[in-house]
């Protein structure tokens, strides 16, 4: 599985939100798209599975231009966990996860035994089996997020896109969700792309980072290459340093202080 984003641009009205973004990524990787609010990272994510159609450029999924695919075919390869799940409907968790099978079902087809097995496994992996017959509107934010991840897994995608998966979650749930996601990337050999503005979580969980500002890529590459003092000052206006933390066995970011805009 290879994803290749080539020269993607997008604008709302006449304002460029994403300009000429290109990158490539392969299976088993966790790629973080990092940037401050308004840097175009969510828009870029939406362009990757064609919820938004890029004004220029395109995306190749395993060498095939995605404009030649139907929405359904894209959904068979890309699973998405959007920013927040609306809560005011009493579908059960099982109903929601079952919807992940829709891209593979013919319009009038009923779920088969194999679909049930896939759903069952997706719920096991995300530890949501015990929630199966509970209505979504009675679940906590973390539980709901895990159910939506289970739904994306039930699509059996090769690529998984997550938009701020830890927003609105308590810290313990943030770690739980990201541990789950990184395990999935390793075990299922998925390509995981996470949009986030959280520097520490990105440094800790991502293999590669794409740093964005004002719709453009500022820097892309390995975590230590990208999260330099200069880059973090330039993009986030903070004085911060990345370091290897033995307690977690990976990188972490220490934020030392804010830099007043204008006197870089």
């Amino acid at each position, binding site marked *: 599985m290879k994803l290749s984003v080539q020269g993607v641009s997008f604008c709302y009205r006449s304002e460029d939100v994403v300009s000429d973004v290109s990158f490539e990524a392969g299976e088993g990787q966790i790629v973080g798209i990092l940037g401050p609010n308004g840097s175009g990272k969510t828009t870029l994510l939406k362009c990757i599975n064609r919820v938004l159609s890029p004004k220029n450029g395109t995306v190749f999924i395993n060498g095939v231009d995605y404009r030649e695919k139907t929405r359904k075919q894209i959904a068979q390869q890309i699973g998405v966990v*959007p920013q927040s799940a*609306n809560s*005011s409907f*009493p*579908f*059960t968790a099982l109903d929601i996860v*079952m*919807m992940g099978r829709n891209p593979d079902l013919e319009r009038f087809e009923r779920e088969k035994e194999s679909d049930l097995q896939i759903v069952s496994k997706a719920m096991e992996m995300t530890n949501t089996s015990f929630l199966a*017959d509970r209505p979504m*509107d009675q679940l906590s934010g973390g539980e709901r997020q895990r159910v939506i991840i289970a739904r994306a897994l039930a699509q059996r995608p090769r690529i998984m896109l997550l938009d701020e998966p830890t927003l609105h979650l308590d810290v313990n749930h943030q770690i739980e969700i990201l541990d789950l996601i990184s395990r999935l990337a390793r075990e299922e050999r998925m390509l995981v792309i996470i949009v986030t503005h959280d520097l520490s979580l990105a440094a800790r969980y991502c293999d590669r980072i794409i740093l964005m500002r004002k719709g453009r890529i500022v820097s892309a590459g390995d975590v230590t290459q990208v999260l330099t003092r200069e880059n973090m000052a330039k993009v986030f206006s903070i004085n911060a340093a990345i370091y290897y933390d033995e307690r977690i066995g990976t990188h972490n970011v220490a934020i030392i202080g804010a830099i007043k805009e204008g006197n870089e």
Partner: protein
Amino acid sequence: MDAVDVASLQKRKFARWAAITATMATGLVLTILFTLNIGAVHIPFETILDVLMGGGTRFQREIILNTRLPRIILGALVGGALAVAGAAMQGVFRNPMASPYVLGISSGAAFGASLAIVAGVSWLPGEFAIPSMAFIFCFLTLFLVYAISRTKGGFVQVETLLLAGIAVGAFFNALVSLMKYFAGEQLSAIVFWMMGGLWQAEWMDVVVALPMITVGTMILWLLSRDLNTMMVGEEHALHLGLNVNTVRMIILLAASLVTAAAVSVSGVIGFVGLVVPHVVRLLVGPDHRILIPVSLLGGAIFMVWTDTVARTIILPAELPVGIITAMIGAPFFIYLIISRRRKMGW
């Protein structure tokens, strides 16, 4: 924490759906048999069965087969159609207050119908002249209300939707009044539209309405899985590979078709499309695969009973059934507004 067996949960759900559908279907058959027995002329139950089997006197046959039965069947069709349209609109608008009447769509359809009655304008001849005009205006109105209330993110806000429905409905009501003013001889026909009732029911009405309602309901039922994902959110539906714009347009067309069929044979009957899907949702949950068929049956039962009350409560005269559905529906609507304040959701 034990792992719940997904397959058995699923099997239990389908079994429950089958049981509910069977119960409702039996309820409808019993309702029809029972209400056939109610009316100004008393006919014993055994005689009714006899007439249905082909016996009875000529007079009894006339009353049962040509007066009561077409009216009951038409009532069932109209009630079922309005409930199905309401269920689909509530799903597509992600809004528990949507229904053909509240959104002014029935008024639009009534205007289309009155154009056909008074001005003789239509694009289909004969018996389909009025329903076809009702359909066109139904869809126009629905589209108008939707376009007015839709925000950029595709989300439709309750307040805006209701206000748009009121405004558009008022506009078409004014147009209908205008038509009434110039109607002359056809005045009574238009008044019939606005009052809403089934007292002119004939077999021909059934013949006109049945195919439209069948086709529209089938389409909505076949799209029920899509309706489910759209109810979770348009963006979610897109992520799951659904062509949201196309599917939404088909759903709106199908909902207009069934509404138009109902309105063109019975006039503007309010609140059935609001109340019935709600009660059914409480009973079976939000899944449209079961919500649509059970709403059809529930709407049919509800309408046949309210119409039976309408035609017998002040014998020998009768009330327009729209009055009764409004008297039940309006308080229910108020209840919805209040419970929404407590954020009951749906």
